[in-house]
């Protein structure tokens, strides 16, 4: 058979190498993050009822509307398919308390995307984690709503006589302001008051392991972040396990601090970043006015990312080492 017989020259493309392409895409990575958050969403629904889903959905809706609106106004393609607004909405929803009015979540999602991401130029260009920007905005604007925590439907029994059945504080606040210690097993399962996604350590660990296993995130940031907090707790005479399981540390360490766009790209930079987040979190928890420090720790460290990267550039092959036998 002649070569020309099945050769359509108009279909022949000439480009520079490489000619093969790995299958992973941005969209798939975002989808993996969303999948990894499902255990936490399920736990939130289990402990706080179906309104948890409504709250999370309202955040996602706000994120989508802001993304679509701003991109349309800029005359660009609307990139909802890339999944990043979905992840922002999901993450934001999981940091919010149960029973919020729909418009609060919607506003948070829209602010997170609009001010946290779009004004920097969109995906990949933002300096701060959009979900945390959304949460910071809501905390500043509606402090009472954002700190109204309640018991899960079946919880609080371990409190005995002090259990008032309806409202409560987060375990960190209970410890800080009322000197009440929450048992570790309750924290691990999530049978405590708190934000939707941060109560169940188990669900977050499952999600975090999934991301590590899939190679979506690297161990460095979660390990150095969590390790720093636990080590400081140990040195400071606190219970490291309590610091690990209570509050937003696991959600922050696995899902927020590991956000590609707003964390260092270098291996050593990731360790520095995690350490910084851990240090700030412990300092805020122990000495600050807030019971929890994950939110501001990560946002502060986000702003240090360019600097960290500058000082942690990898050693280029063939430089900086003796080039003889190693």
């Amino acid at each position: 058979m002649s070569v020309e017989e099945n050769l359509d020259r108009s279909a022949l493309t000439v480009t520079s190498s490489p000619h093969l392409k790995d299958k992973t895409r941005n969209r798939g990575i975002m989808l993996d993050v969303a999948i990894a958050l499902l255990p936490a969403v399920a736990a939130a629904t289990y402990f706080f009822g179906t309104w948890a889903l409504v709250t999370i959905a309202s955040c996602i809706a706000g994120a989508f509307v802001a993304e679509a609106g701003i991109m349309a106004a800029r005359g660009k393609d609307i990139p909802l398919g890339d999944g990043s607004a979905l992840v922002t909405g999901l993450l934001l929803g999981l940091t919010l308390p149960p029973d919020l009015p729909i418009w609060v979540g919607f506003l948070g999602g829209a602010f997170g995307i609009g001010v946290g991401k779009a004004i920097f130029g969109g995906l990949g260009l933002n300096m701060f984690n959009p979900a945390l920007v959304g949460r910071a905005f809501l905390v500043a604007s509606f402090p009472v709503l954002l700190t109204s925590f309640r018991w899960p439907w079946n919880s609080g029994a371990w409190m005995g006589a002090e259990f008032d059945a309806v409202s409560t504080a987060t375990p960190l606040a209970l410890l800080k302001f009322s000197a009440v210690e929450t048992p570790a097993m309750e924290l691990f399962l999530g049978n405590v008051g708190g934000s939707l996604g941060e109560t169940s350590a188990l669900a977050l660990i499952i999600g975090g392991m999934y991301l590590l296993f899939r190679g979506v995130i690297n161990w460095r940031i979660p390990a150095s972040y969590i390790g720093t907090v636990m080590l400081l707790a140990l040195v400071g005479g606190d219970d490291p396990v309590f610091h690990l399981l209570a509050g937003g540390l696991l959600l922050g360490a696995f899902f927020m601090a590991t956000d590609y766009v707003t964390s260092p790209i270098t291996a050593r930079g990731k360790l520095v970043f995690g350490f910084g987040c851990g240090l700030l979190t412990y300092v805020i928890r122990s000495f600050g006015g807030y019971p929890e420090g994950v939110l501001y720790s990560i946002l502060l460290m986000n702003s240090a990312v360019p600097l960290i990267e500058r000082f942690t550039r990898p050693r280029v092959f063939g430089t900086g080492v003796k080039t003889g036998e190693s």
Partner: protein
Amino acid sequence: MAAKTFRGGVHPPEFKDLTSSSAIENLPPPDRVVVPLVQHIGAPCQPAVTEETELSKGDEVRLGQKIGDVDAFVSAPVHAPVSGEVADIGSARLSDGRKVPAVIIDSDGEDRPSEEIEPAGDMRNLSPEEIKGIIREAGIVGMGGAAFPCHVKYSPPEGNELDTIVINGCECEPFLTCDDRLMIEEPGEIVFGLEVIMKATGAKRGIIGIEDNKPQAIEAVREAVGDRDFEVVAVQTKYPQGAEKQLIKAVTGREVPSGGLPLNVGVVVNNVATAASISAAIRTGMPLVERIVTVSGDVVARPANLRVRIGTPIRDLFEFCGGFTESPARIISGGPLMGQAIADLDMPIVKGTSGLLALSSRIVTYEEEEPCIRCGRCVDICPAYLMPLFTARYPDDEALEYNPLDCIECGSCSYICPANQRLLPRIRLTKMEAQARQRDEG
């Protein structure tokens, strides 16, 4: 013990089973060959029979007779791959787009060898200088793709001592199996080639590095090595394991300095096909006039490993393999990661052509670029330890600060990028700019 390797790299699908069990077949020499006078890095050859006699249209040539040479150290002569008559001194297009002078020969179909071709005799009686002379005269260049003249590699500048020869049997590019088959079928040639190179350079240590996805080749080469004091090292199957600096790192632990050459750490790396050609030049006296080429791809009717004469049109190889089962979306000279896309099937096979691939759009995909999400995959896998996302920011001047000249152009970053960013093409631009500025300053 885990297989030796370097840090970084990617694992593309191998696609090697299309041809890994296809024994090397001889492609009948074509009626007409087009032999480019530039098939190497260095000074272009002039058409010539000897230094004094020019080659011209109508001249009779014999198989293996020199038809091009130049009086320059960094160069390699070319030889007639068939016997016959010089039809013209014309030109040929190479896969990188260059148009170079070429000798066009009409074959008489006889393959009458040149009288100059005779075995070099017992290698033990040859001095290193004599061996280097034979290798130079045989026109032997690196056959892994770079086509750097071998005798130059074996002559280290003052102050550098060569102590190790690494024979590269990694063949880390997907699809390609020509080196694999050569190792399986003719391991003795490779081992003898290594002995010759060691004699020529005075190196004490000989290493043959083979990726561990080629157990048959490893076995065959080990057997051929026998009780000789050579190390056959199974290295991890990973791209670009066969890149010179990365292979040296894997098998010796030495790191070639930035901007330097393997010579700077006392090493020379040669591809297995190069070693086999050197063996042939010593044993039979036949210069480099043929090579093994893998013809593969999902739309090639009958993928194969072919021994072909230099100067054979690419068309003939595909023709021999039954043509295409459907129209290819891309035809590539070389491997799919570092090879060059071509559109002209009349280009000749040259000394550095390791493979010809015809791939459908199922394998060669095209997708629009998406925003970089700074996932860091390119940084994690860069075998030169660069930060490709920043090096690719040309024409932003900042890109120049991210070591463009250390890029080995393996393309792993473009391969892995989940945003489809054309990282390597942009890094090439940064690199060219950096080189231009160096020249301006220098």
